[in-house]
């Protein structure tokens, strides 16, 4: 019984923590963007503008929740729920210490890949159900982009799996006691980061919602908290990908002095800041550049990484 209470407690703490972190990230991103672009960002509401998140949430909740009359209503409502579900489900396999975590799955990494491929449906269906040509174009772009980048997201982590000999995220972290995998798998890290940015549809890969050409892409027709769910889902996705990068390549919870979950949080936060720095600096790619870059540069790189890692692993025995 104690075990049940403990795991329920972990589930709820993780749920509340990840959702509030995602909410706070909206403020962190705007402040950091302001810093890097030599302006202030939101600093009026509360100390340092910290209450901006609360103000935004209240504004979103009280907006009219409008469903276009020509939309496919069921699918339209379902779409934002899918992204929240798939991202929150992925958080269950992230290990916070050698014993702390929601589930200890021996195929944890595959579970993460599966759930991230489920996330595609949210943008595709959202774009289709809106029955609006800009939304549809956004949805089309999203599905092609996420399908392509998923391929070498899977390939890039294969190097890590080869070295650790397991899909279990906990085993992968324990195996990094001597040296973090960002050293032997530097190429894999690069490919995974690029794929991660594309999976979360962030600049420079934010073509599905390119606001200069598609209004807001797949979520043009969404208002109120349905839009809020897409928004929070995006930030949850960034947090998730950062946590997975920290786990796979930067030793997860490993670190001296501080308790393990704190180390994971610090590493995750640094990687999240890197995501925001990318947005602050890079321009948006053109669509054919995006697909060409994916299939002609990233895929061969990921395959090369896998080939060399496999050969070395085989030679070492």
């Amino acid at each position, binding site marked *: 019984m104690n075990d049940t209470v403990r795991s329920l407690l972990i589930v709820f703490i993780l749920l509340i923590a990840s959702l509030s972190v995602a909410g706070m990230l909206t403020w962190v991103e705007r402040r950091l963007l302001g810093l890097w672009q030599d302006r202030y960002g939101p600093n009026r509401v509360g100390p340092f503008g910290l209450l901006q998140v609360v103000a935004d949430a209240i504004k979103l909740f009280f907006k009219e929740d409008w469903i276009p009359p020509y939309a496919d209503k069921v*699918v339209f409502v379902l779409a934002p729920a899918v992204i929240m579900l798939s991202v929150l489900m992925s958080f269950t396999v992230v290990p916070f210490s050698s014993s702390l975590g929601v589930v200890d799955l*021996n195929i944890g990494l595959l579970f993460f890949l599966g759930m991230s491929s489920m996330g595609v449906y949210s943008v*595709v*269906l959202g*774009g289709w159900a809106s029955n609006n040509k800009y939304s549809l174009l956004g949805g089309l772009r999203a*599905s092609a982009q996420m399908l392509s980048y998923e391929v070498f997201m*899977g390939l890039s982590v294969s190097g890590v799996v080869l070295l650790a000999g397991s*899909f279990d995220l906990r085993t992968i972290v324990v195996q990094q006691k001597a040296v973090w995998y960002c050293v032997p798998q530097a190429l894999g890290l690069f490919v995974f980061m690029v794929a991660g940015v594309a999976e979360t549809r962030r600049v420079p890969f934010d073509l599905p919602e390119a606001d200069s050409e598609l209004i807001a892409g797949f979520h043009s027709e969404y208002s109120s908290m349905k839009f809020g769910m897409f928004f929070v889902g995006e930030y949850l996705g960034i947090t998730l990908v950062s946590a997975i990068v920290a786990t796979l390549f930067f030793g997860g919870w490993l670190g001296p002095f501080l308790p393990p979950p704190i180390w994971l949080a610090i590493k995750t936060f640094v990687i999240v800041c890197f995501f925001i720095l990318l947005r602050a600096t890079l321009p948006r790619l053109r669509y054919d550049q995006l697909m060409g870059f994916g299939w002609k540069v990233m895929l061969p790189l990921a395959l090369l990484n896998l080939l060399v890692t496999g050969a070395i692993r085989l030679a070492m025995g």
Partner: protein
Amino acid sequence: MNAVYYISSVVAVVATVAAVTGLNAVHSLLYLIVSFLAVALIFFTLGAPVIAALEVIIYAGAIIVLFIFVVMILNLGDVAVEQEKRWTVGKMWVGPALLALVLMAELVYVLFQQTVHHLPGAGPIQPQDLGATLFGPYMLGVELASMVLLAGLVGAYHLGRRRQPDETAQERQEPVDAGARR
């Protein structure tokens, strides 16, 4: 675990029936996704977690997205639903229903025989076992599948390649044919 198995089986059957009988193409595909997820859960309860994960990643995550991709471009709406209603008359259900009934009878017969052959060494299958089997005794199958995929890739490249300028010029010299095709 037994309850999980039966519940996900029921979900799989219901979702598949809904996918087959549905009139709206996208809704049918959504039911198909649910069906794949239910089948993944069945694999998981049977002790094959890797297959379950691959079912989600490949079937539910990649292949159905491509289906939806195509259906999205077709821009089907209420008109298509009406057309589907006219096409799916009672008579067309007879053949498939008969065939399915035969399979169902066979399944019931096998279940009542009590001498179901268990898979050798049935138990949780680890990822390593799966890889070693695929690239050991079943190497030929993997290579054959890769050849089929390569053929598909070459075919897609041929259909999608950009025409050279001189080829389009050649086509212009046969205006009757080209006009008829357009």
